């Protein structure tokens, strides 16, 4: 089964992987902090006109809660870490075309939150991305500008 990205079904598939992947459970066993991934439109998806967001409550190697926002409400989501990027860049990160560390160093992936905690837990961040890449993903149809 392939899950369209972005969608709630894709998020559900990711949560299932996070909560069953032994390696993630081990690598992220000390991680404490919810994250919000905000994805801006850039023409990479013909259907996206607003910033969308994924919220995941990640705690000691599991995902306790997750939400998908087709537009970001005024009152949230707030999280310990917010990652902001474009649809094109998140798709490149998922495909392996863009290295997540390189994306952060070039601000193609903006980070709001305690960078020191993030850097001390780089293996958790990279393994989270690995789990994202495990989701069978149907990327969006690109818009005319892409």
């Amino acid at each position, binding site marked *: 089964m392939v899950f369209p990205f972005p969608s709630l079904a894709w998020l559900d598939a990711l949560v299932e992987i996070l909560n069953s992947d032994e390696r993630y459970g081990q690598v992220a066993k000390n991680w404490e902090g919810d994250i919000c991934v905000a994805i801006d439109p850039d023409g990479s998806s013909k259907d996206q006109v607003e910033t969308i967001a994924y919220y995941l409550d990640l705690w000691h190697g599991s995902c306790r809660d997750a939400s998908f926002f087709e537009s970001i409400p005024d009152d949230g989501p707030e999280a310990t870490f917010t990652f902001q990027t474009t649809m094109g860049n998140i798709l490149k990160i998922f495909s392996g075309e863009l290295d997540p560390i390189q994306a952060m160093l070039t601000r193609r992936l903006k980070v709001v939150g305690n960078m020191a905690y993030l*850097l001390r837990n780089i293996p958790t961040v990279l393994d989270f991305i690995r789990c994202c890449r495990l989701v069978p993903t149907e990327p969006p149809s690109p818009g005319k500008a892409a």
Partner: protein
Amino acid sequence: MPQYLLVHDVLEYPESQDDWIEMWRSLREKACGQAEWLHSFYEPSTRKMYCEWDAPDIESIMACLSEELLAIVPVLSSSEVVLFDAAWLDEGNE
């Protein structure tokens, strides 16, 4: 040009993404004379950084590292090293 491998302890981490990028950028700007910083590997389990340089001597590398930077990532060791590229073995099969 001789190559060097420097091992650093990472004692502190920047608090924000901007601070982190600025730290790397300032090193990059200083390391573009005789000594050239090629790349670095970070070992999370030991909080060590392994940095590879092209430089005429170790002194020209140390000249690129500010006191402020060395307070955060002190040098544990420096060695002149020789590159063995795995891709060279492919060339022998052509």
